[in-house]
């Protein structure tokens, strides 16, 4: 089901494959750094994403192995953005059902409405599919882009 979507581009800077993370915080910060490197957000967005999890718990682990890290639109968001971090060693987030995490998908939306549209697109990709598994095992940014149906 590799298809074109309405998601923002995923440049090489926004993809980190087989990364090593000490803990969930480290994994989310890696994804935040990738988002900032792509130009979609300021560095502070990584901290915003970590704070969301500190405040509300590991609810961002929405499916087995997948964390959907995000924060509210705000001054740290320059434009819609997407980043993917895959972990060489899976990391627990403390989620009762979906630990450990192998893939962190970080999302930034320029507005709340836009953020909701983006998560709807993401749902279309991950519904009833083995997309998490395929992304976790991707060896190149091109392979990740093909699974998500996004441009570089």
């Amino acid at each position, binding site marked *: 089901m590799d298809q074109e979507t309405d998601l923002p581009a995923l440049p090489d800077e926004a993809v980190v494959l087989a990364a090593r993370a000490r803990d969930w915080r480290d994994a989310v910060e890696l994804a935040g750094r990738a988002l900032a490197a792509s130009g979609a957000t300021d560095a502070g967005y990584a901290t915003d994403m970590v704070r969301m999890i500190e*405040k509300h*718990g590991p*609810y961002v682990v929405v499916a087995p192995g997948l964390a959907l890290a995000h924060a509210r639109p705000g001054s740290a968001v320059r434009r819609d953005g997407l980043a993917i971090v895959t972990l060489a060693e899976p990391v627990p987030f403390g989620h*009762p*059902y979906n630990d450990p995490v192998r893939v962190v998908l970080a999302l930034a939306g320029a507005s709340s409405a836009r953020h909701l549209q983006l998560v*709807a697109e993401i*749902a279309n990709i991950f519904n*009833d599919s083995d997309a998490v598994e395929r992304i976790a095992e991707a060896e190149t940014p091109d392979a990740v882009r093909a699974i998500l149906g996004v441009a570089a």
Partner: protein
Amino acid sequence: MKILTLCGAGIGTSGILKVNAERVLQRLGIEARVVAIDASMLESELDDAQVILTGPEFVDTIGKTFADVIVIENYFDTAELQRKLELALG
């Protein structure tokens, strides 16, 4: 009928639950309005809601309610969502 999907910011994981709930409800032929919210909107939206879909972390936040609280494990598993919605809506 009104269904709430609840998460931390009201724009992320609740959005996934919203699109997938709408998909399942259409499949079941059930008419409902699905609203994605964060905890700060709970009080104003809860009155006429019949069902709340959320993750395990938010059950305590919701507290006592007449609405059916459905805890979703895998947000992308529409079969799980359909099973739990059917059970709640009987």
